């Protein structure tokens, strides 16, 4: 289970971010409150995604077991993907 959570860590962070901002916008509609909440959540989640990516990358370099290295690779990639998606997801708070 931990393996899976690590493997999908970035994407899980993306999920948390997406539904957090969705709920915020649903409750506060298009208001300053919603924008602020979105921005805050976005920063926190970006930080989490960055951490996961870096950790994955470090683990990848350090791992000897090919299976472990593979898991680190995927974790790093999913963190990076999540980073991009979360960054985009934060844009509406600035632009709308």
């Amino acid at each position: 289970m931990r393996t899976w959570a690590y493997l999908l860590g970035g994407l899980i962070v993306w999920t948390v971010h997406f539904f957090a901002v969705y709920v915020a916008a649903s409750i506060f509609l298009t208001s300053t409150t919603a924008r602020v909440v979105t921005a805050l959540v976005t920063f926190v989640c970006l930080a989490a995604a960055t951490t996961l990516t870096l950790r994955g990358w470090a683990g990848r370099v350090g791992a000897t077991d090919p299976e472990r290295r593979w898991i680190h690779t995927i974790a790093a990639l999913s963190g990076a993907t999540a980073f991009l998606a979360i960054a985009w997801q934060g844009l509406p708070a600035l632009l709308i």
Partner: protein
Amino acid sequence: MSSETGFDPALYERFPTTGERPAGEFDELNRIWAAPTGIAKLTAVNNNYVGVWYIATAFLFFVLAGVLALVMRAQLALPLQGILPQETYNQFFTMHGTIMMFLFAVPIMEALGVLLLPQMLAARDLPFPRLSAYAFWAYFVGGLCFFASIFFGLAPNGGWFMYPPLTSTTYSPGINADFWLLGIGFIEISAIAGAIEIIVGVLRTRAPGMSLREMPIFAWGMLVFAGMIVIAFPSVILATLLLELERALNWPFFDPTRGGDPVLWQHLFWFFGHPEVYIIFLPASALVSMMIPALARTRLVGHNLIVLAFLATGFISFGVWAHHMFATGMPALSVGFFAAASMAVSVPAGIQVFSWIATFASGKPVFNTPTLFVLGGLVTFVIGGLTGVMVALVPFDWQVHDTHFIVAHLHYVLIGGAVFPLFAVFYYWMGMTSRRPLSERTGKWVFWLMFVGMQVIFLPMHLTGLMGMPRRVYTYLPGRDWEITNMISTIGAFIFAAGVLLFLIELARNFRFTVEDDAGNVYGGGTLEWLPTGLYSTRSIPVVNSRYPLWDDPGICKDVEEGRYFLPNAPTGHRETIITSPVRAEPEYVQIMPGPSAWPLLAAVFTAGFFVILTIQAYGVALFSGVLAVLCVLRWLWDTDRPIAVEQADVGAGIMLPTYVTGPRTHGWWAMIVLLVVIGMIFLMAVFSYFYLYGIHPQFWMVEAQGWWLFPIVGLYALAALLAWLGRRLLAREDVSEWTPSGLLLWGMVAAGAAFILDLWSWRATGLTGDASGQGAIIHALFTLQGCLVFILALMAVYLAARTGRALIIKPCNNTFDLITLFTWYLAGQGAASALLTRLVPGGF
């Protein structure tokens, strides 16, 4: 190398074994796996049979829905044509969409999973063969009944998206809408059954050594596919349940005059509906990723990136549902989030496309039919993806939403992303189930007809949409310059149809079903499905340490055929396969598999019968059919979960594995967890609906139940969970009679039932009825869900009592007991959550 389960990887070194295999074990294997003959063949559950039937049925629906589309195109060829009357046209486009989505696209992907997965994983079969058979038969019988509705003018006519209030009883008083709602009920059940099968199959029945890293890309695709079904389908299950409740009992979920909201349906539907597109696309693209290496004679470039693309798609596609709702007037900020997610989800698609291009570039592609279909699909899909990016931009979508531009876009995506790959698949894997491969020469004709037809239909259709032609119109007025593009599209439709027709002729000429003496690896694939096989799948299950074992180990076919790997025989005398661990695929135990049985078939027929008969409102007969379905299922289960005399089996090279395992390691436990995730998702979507309705129309939420009822209700649910836990503990003890644990569990069930009744009664005492308001409706919907679980629990109680009475609950631990305990825990949790939710939000103490 580290280990996941304590299995020593060094043991893999013993394979391939040397020395003579004992005489007769091969005949024994054949005897055990032999399929029934004659009419009894219908009771076969082996994936080689069920898979092919499944694919054939799905393809039949593709052709049928295609015929509907042809007639519609003929109607639209010119303005103001009278080929189809308005009402019939509305039924046709509804059926076309519904059949293509529910009866063709999803089932054929599951079917390919059923047929190919065990071969690719070198398992003897999927872990629940009878469940596959059940899923297929329910789909087959129910699907045909559903399709037949069009011959009686009873076909649904509200669009495949069935937006209320158009589909409510006020505006759709006939039973057409019920046909859709109940008609796809069994399809949902079938899809979920298939998804459970696939998830457990991919995670637990891989060949030893086939770790996640080595797992074939199709297994990844199917894993994400099945995971998405598990998350997405509950949403549409709940939606159809709510709408049917509104239609049957007048509970106003979607009626704004009484506190419902029509947009709730759209959220629920598209939360399923958009992932559905990726549910269709992922397996198809995974198959492309399987074929391209063989077609280009090289390894897949960017394997890891593709795995990531699958995973990312699996997640991000759940954040794009509302891009079907940009025109509903949602808050601008929410709209922005969905636009951003829609952009994000296109990145994984880009990764796959470039990975395929890179693979072609690194290899030496041969222009045979599968290659052509793959290339045609790739180009087509890219065009669809580009228009997809366009419509992800909200302002552009405001213009083209619900026009023929969207029709063109979605067909580009689905035909390019799924249909062309499927035809490539037919050609590529035909050698596995047919004595003769399909003809390359005809194949090229088929491809060019279909490819040209596809472009001729849909390329001009973009323009038709920009010229202002909305979707779902049965005709249009002349003088709007829509004639030319529509006529071109219609001509294209007939070209496309000619390609499909040619393919059908080709099938009739060359397809000869077989399991044993098939045409084989025509295109030179390197994965395990091309190992020599029989009904038992492979003679022995190889140790895998490569993504392309057939290329990397030239001797593997011979070794497998000679039984030099795992499970070269049937040590227990039953059908069996090896269950391995989910990450590193280390052998854990030998699963005893059920064989042919008529019960899944009967259960499926009665299940489909229940839903279909319910539609025509013959409630008595429907109930009878439903009872029979339940009885059949119970009878089918009755034979399962029995330990056998051989407790430890030699699976080859002296490695001993247990034959009966209980607890969280078992495949049954995993399947139950997946099922509970499904049920939990249904509940979660109901909770979402609860908050949604409250948020939209709080003024209708006037009734409050007294808060102190929570104490007895939650207390009883807690008691139920506790008793179930105690029962499981006591089962392990030697000094109690076998009725003690069962009795505790049964008492736990009684407590859960009592809690449910108490909850229901306390709400009824407030005078709140289901048809009073949105609040009443959604609370009663929660009770309906909980009531269903309580009903299932009651069935389980009877089953448990019966098994205990026949001494089939075996100490110290037993799978049946475990699974019922799990279910009871879940039920108690959901019941308590439901009671808390309805009392604390928005009321409180």
